[in-house]
């Protein structure tokens, strides 16, 4: 009897799960990919660089990985590795001249670079021009994303605890002082830029292999801003912030489906409210600790009056 019940419940759950998975698997995959994208821009932000090239690097990685999968028989890991390596190489080349700029000037130069990439992709034959690439094999499994997100988090966490992370933070706080403490400022900025590009590229490669189709419009200005928004929304003081930010901003549009055509408005409103009232992002350990303290104080006060 019980066996029968569990098997009915089991099949019921399995049916529900299959339906759920086929509807939402791209959303679930995007949770991890967007977390990686937010982390990719976190790396440059942690070094004090406002670079908006990450959507372009994602695109370069996506095209490189997809073309390898579609035109050669090479295995998926090779395609993904190329998807990380090519943007890293491009970042190395364009980083040397552009990273001399700072602040909004760097933001503008990197946005310009993103536009150049988009137009080049739009006009090349091998990339399929404005039609993009269709029929990219669906090779991304959920555990690929989990594994690569975990690897990204691990590497970045290790770096934070070393002289590399300290050098990044010193540069962010005071470039001149960092230089005179013996930090090779130009070198570390380039390192941050290249690492960010590689992470964005791998994320792009993963993304292309579950969306079936990609086009030049997927990696344009709006996407660059969206990546930045995810990191800033989550908070750039730690690794938790961008990860959460990427995930929440992936889920938010789904959760707001009931608002139908007003979805974008509500989405924007939430962003504005967070930026206004939580300027350091939703993951701000000091503020959260402050809340926890007030909460426990209230609780003890309530307990005392009993």
């Amino acid at each position, binding site marked *: 009897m019980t066996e029968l019940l569990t098997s009915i419940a089991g099949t019921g759950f399995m049916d529900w799960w299959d339906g759920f998975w086929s509807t939402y698997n791209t959303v679930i995959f995007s949770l991890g990919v967007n977390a990686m994208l937010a982390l990719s821009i976190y790396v440059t932000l942690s070094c004090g660089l406002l670079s908006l090239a990450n959507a372009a690097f994602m695109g370069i990685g996506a095209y490189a990985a997809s073309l390898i999968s579609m035109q050669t028989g090479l295995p998926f890991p090779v395609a993904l590795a190329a998807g990380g390596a090519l943007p890293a190489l491009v970042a190395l080349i364009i980083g040397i001249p552009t990273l001399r700029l700072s602040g909004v000037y760097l933001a503008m130069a990197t946005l310009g670079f993103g536009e150049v990439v988009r137009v080049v992709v739009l006009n090349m034959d091998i990339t399929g021009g404005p039609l993009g690439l269709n029929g990219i094999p669906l090779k991304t499994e959920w555990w690929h994303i989990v594994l690569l997100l975990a690897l990204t988090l*691990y*590497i970045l966490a*290790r*770096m934070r*605890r*070393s*002289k*590399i992370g*300290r*050098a990044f*933070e*010193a540069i962010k*706080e*005071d470039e*001149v*002082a*960092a*230089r*005179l*403490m*013996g*930090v*090779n*400022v130009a070198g570390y900025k380039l390192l941050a830029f290249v690492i960010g590009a590689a992470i964005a590229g791998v994320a792009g490669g993963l993304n292309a292999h579950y969306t079936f189709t990609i086009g030049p419009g997927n990696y344009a200005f709006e996407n660059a801003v969206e990546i930045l928004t995810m990191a800033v929304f989550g908070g750039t003081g730690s690794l938790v912030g961008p990860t959460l930010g990427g995930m929440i901003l992936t889920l938010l549009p789904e959760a707001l489906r009931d608002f139908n055509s007003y979805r974008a408005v509500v989405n924007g409103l939430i962003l504005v409210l967070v930026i206004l009232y939580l300027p350091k992002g939703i993951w701000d350990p000091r503020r959260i600790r402050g809340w926890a303290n007030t909460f426990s104080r209230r609780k003890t006060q309530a307990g005392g009056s009993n």
Partner: protein
Amino acid sequence: MLQLKNISKNFGGLQVLQDVNFNVPQGGIFGLIGPNGAGKTTVFNLITGLLRASGGAIEFDGQDIGKVAAHKITERGIARTFQNIRVFKEMTLLENVVVGMHDHMDYGFGSVLLNLGGYRRIEAQARERALELLSWLRLDHKAQMLADSLSYGEQRKLEFARALATKPKLLLLDEPVAGMNPAEKTELMEEILNIKQRGFSIFMIEHDMRFVMGLCDRIAVLNFGRIIAEGSPDEIKNNQEVIEAYLGKEDSE
């Protein structure tokens, strides 16, 4: 130890330094004084590689450092503090000092990723050394606090500790007592003497005459981009040109 030979610097048409020559000897405290706008901080910026001289040569330990990158000059043994304090405010005191040890932490990316013994040992040693340097300046009890929470005088001392972390042979102090109250000045004077006694050579720029006269073994005076005098504190005090530069010329009537 440090030699400036015929150094000149102009920003566009503005001649800031002209034919500046002096020699900072090993050991002891050398002072560079001069009225506001005389070009003192420019001298420091040239020595530390933040600016390039328009002419002349800078030699440190017999080697030309005129074209060496700023972070490489630090590696060769020149460290400095800043007139407007530049500590890393969002870092703890300990982290501030450990940043200064950047060049002396030799481990590869691989040992960071795998958390290997070499990396762990070097990090532990750096922390220990940083605490020791903080204790020299009596800041070790605040090691885990954010630098932002320190008073002005304490931030200056933290800058000293951070500069010492780079293992300098020569320490450049840019107006160390600017904006300090008398008690802080006296305390800082002691700290500077302590650092000198530990074998560091010191080269400082300062406005406060009593402070300079009390500390320095040798002083050079800069006025309108030229060295107008060099000598012991007593010689400087009685130098006619120096008195004129500071107090103006007496009317001949």
